[in-house]
């Protein structure tokens, strides 16, 4: 075992050396031109399948392949959960793709610690024009120990409170302005046989979005920042206990649809509950908009869907402008890839991923691009939603990354596991805090 560790390390050293050489070569030729008489190396790219993103991911690769027939990128797409396993196994076995698609944060840090991804800090300083095209707030989750290891791509995705306007009219109530309003709405919807909130509880990270907002509105962003920084017993803050108790109260009050424990987000069943009128509200990522447009018939078109930032909690210390979600998606370059493949990837980063077609493509997908100056592109049916998302993202005092993405996979699994038990009332708030304190900094 020690032998294999050694050989791995030696291999890593070699790979890092090759990467360094590649960077030097790139400096020498001033600009991302392909080496060896126009015939660059082929590169591979793995990402997520399904709507709304896959067509635009494929389009960017097609554009690049058309412009660079000598250095083709081959793309493979996987379903969300399958991808998370596949990429881990592939990287562990040294069979990963050239370009690793991810969510930044703790997952990226694990790759960095294992020496799997290339440091892009120098590349970004040499290609300042590329860096300048991307929202600066999106670089936070791409940065580990002060160095940039990934390029922010695709869209900024704040999590918002969606609601079914038709149901609100039917019951004769107004969208909630505060957490107190939410509590008032729960019995009103339940009385009409409508679930107040849709929730895909089996997916677990869906439940987590509730905790993120409840804690932030309650106590601001300090508590989780301390957890993220690895300060011992950070979860023991009284605000956490208060938040957990509130969440369990919601469960006890039947705020969430019956059977939420077995609903999965991958099948979009939680969103179906909202647009089919079985549930009145749903806390979900902004990407859900595109899914509801695509699958909800004329629900969105006919003005059935409403959205807002999560309302403030009465007496809470958190800034109501704060939001949580994905400050972007991230693409890293594998340090095990050949230098030629790495060059191809960098060229892809500097061209197709930041061009205007890319920007308008992601707007068309129903998202706010990580690329700057996209507001002028917000036209047509989705304009209002996109403007609102853009304003939530840009006006947020703190745009926090989703907890499970920010933490290491080990801590994230304990977090998600305990969140599922919390919603199932299988653990008390205090047990939850104790369990989570146990994995701080791991």
């Amino acid at each position, binding site marked *: *075992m*020690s032998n*294999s*560790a050694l050989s*791995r*390390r030696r291999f890593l050293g070699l790979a890092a050396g090759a990467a360094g050489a590649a960077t030097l070569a790139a400096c020498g030729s001033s600009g991302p031109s392909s080496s060896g008489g126009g015939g660059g190396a082929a590169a591979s790219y793995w990402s997520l399948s399904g709507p709304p993103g896959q067509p635009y991911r494929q389009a960017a690769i097609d554009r690049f392949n058309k412009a660079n027939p000598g250095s083709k990128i081959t793309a493979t797409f996987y379903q969300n959960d399958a991808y998370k*396993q596949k990429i*881990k*196994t592939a*990287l*562990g076995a040294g069979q990963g793709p050239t370009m690793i698609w991810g969510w930044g944060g703790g997952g990226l840090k*694990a*790759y960095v*610690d*294992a*020496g*799997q991804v290339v440091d892009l800090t120098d590349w970004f300083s040499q290609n300042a024009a590329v860096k300048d095209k991307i929202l600066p707030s999106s670089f936070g989750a791409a940065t580990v120990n002060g160095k940039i290891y990934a390029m922010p791509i695709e869209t900024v995705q704040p999590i918002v409170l969606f609601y079914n306007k038709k149901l609100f009219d039917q019951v004769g109530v107004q969208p909630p302005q505060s957490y107190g309003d939410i509590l008032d709405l729960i019995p009103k919807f339940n009385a009409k046989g409508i679930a107040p909130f849709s929730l895909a*509880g*089996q997916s677990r990270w869906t439940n987590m979005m509730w905790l993120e907002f409840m804690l932030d509105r309650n106590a601001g962003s300090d508590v989780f920042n301390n957890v993220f920084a690895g300060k011992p017993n950070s979860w023991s803050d009284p605000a956490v206990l208060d938040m957990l108790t509130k969440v369990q109260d919601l469960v006890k009050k039947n705020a969430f*649809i*019956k*059977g*939420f*424990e*077995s*609903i*999965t987000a991958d099948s979009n*069943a939680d969103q*179906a*509950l909202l647009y089919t009128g*079985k549930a009145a509200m749903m806390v979900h990522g902004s990407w859900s908009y595109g899914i509801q447009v695509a699958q909800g018939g004329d629900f969105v078109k006919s003005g059935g869907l409403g959205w807002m930032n999560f309302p403030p909690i009465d007496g809470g210390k958190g800034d109501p402008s704060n939001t949580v979600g994905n400050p972007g998606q991230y693409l890293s370059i594998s340090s095990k890839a050949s230098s030629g493949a790495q060059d191809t990837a960098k060229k892809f980063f500097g061209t197709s991923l930041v061009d205007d077609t890319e920007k308008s493509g992601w707007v068309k997908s129903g998202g706010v691009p990580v690329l700057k100056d996209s507001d002028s592109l917000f036209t047509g049916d989705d304009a209002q939603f996109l403007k609102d998302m853009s304003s939530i993202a840009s006006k947020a005092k703190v745009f926090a990354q989703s907890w499970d993405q920010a933490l*290491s*996979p*080990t801590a*994230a*699994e*304990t977090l*998600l*596991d305990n969140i*599922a*038990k919390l*919603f*199932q009332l*299988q653990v008390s708030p205090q047990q939850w805090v104790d369990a989570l304190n146990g994995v701080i900094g791991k």
Partner: protein
Amino acid sequence: MTALAPPAARVKAPTARGGRSGVTWMALPALLMFLAFGLVPLIGVLLLSFTTWDGIGPITPSGLTSWRNALSDRELPHALWVTFEIMAISWLVQTPISILIGTFMAAFKRYRGFLAVLYFIPLLLSSAAISITFKALIDPNFGIGSGLGVDWLKQNWLGEPKLAMGVLVFIVSWQYIPFHSLIYQGAVRQIPASLYEASKIDGAGGMRQFFSITLPQIKYTIITSSTLMVVGSLTFFDLIYVLTGGGPGDSTRALALEMYQKGFMANLMGPASAIAMILVLVGVILAQILRRLGGRGDESQLEGM
């Protein structure tokens, strides 16, 4: 005389050796498969359980750290208990039904071929497909209950711990009862008809025949089928993973699922390997116990025939 004996022995020896080597040669493919896909990975997992590895970085030996981590986790006894529950309940449900259907099919000659094919169908489907189908069918909001307007079907099937366990056992039984019925059918048909004829002359009825002849005669089949059920239930993974993901909470998180979550979700390959070794140990011990329950393999079931 003495000069003659050695050639005779020499003549005999090659045939004996030849016979044995023939047998060895026939066992070779199975042995090689077992070595390559059973034993080698097993040794790999055993070695991994004494290391710390996150699945992507370097593997570092760490002595008993992973074992301590795995054994001190209170999820382990819980997962063991859930595994045992699934095993025991599904055995209790499957065995009587399988024996009855098997006996019935053995006697029911007319549609035997057709029924045998029909019964085999659930076994041909993949567990994942079965799980997805059942999950959709029993969905409290979009499933068969609300579709047909049948209220008692609108239970929170996979959201209540007890119901979820029940659904799990039901689906397992639905999938495997046909298989075990076929085994029992074969066993019942092997019972000599003369036993039944003799008992008939002695005035035994159908019930008496079943308990005094059929059941004792299929004893070894019961043990074979139980071994398959018990050891098989240790490896239920795809079914649970797709159906409940171990939920609600951790109510259906069996050992195999616990191992997966440790290894591939939490990136703790060392403790996951330790759990895998525990899984292997439990499987081997259970298989041994069931073999012992069968008694000595050389006793005859046809005494007095």
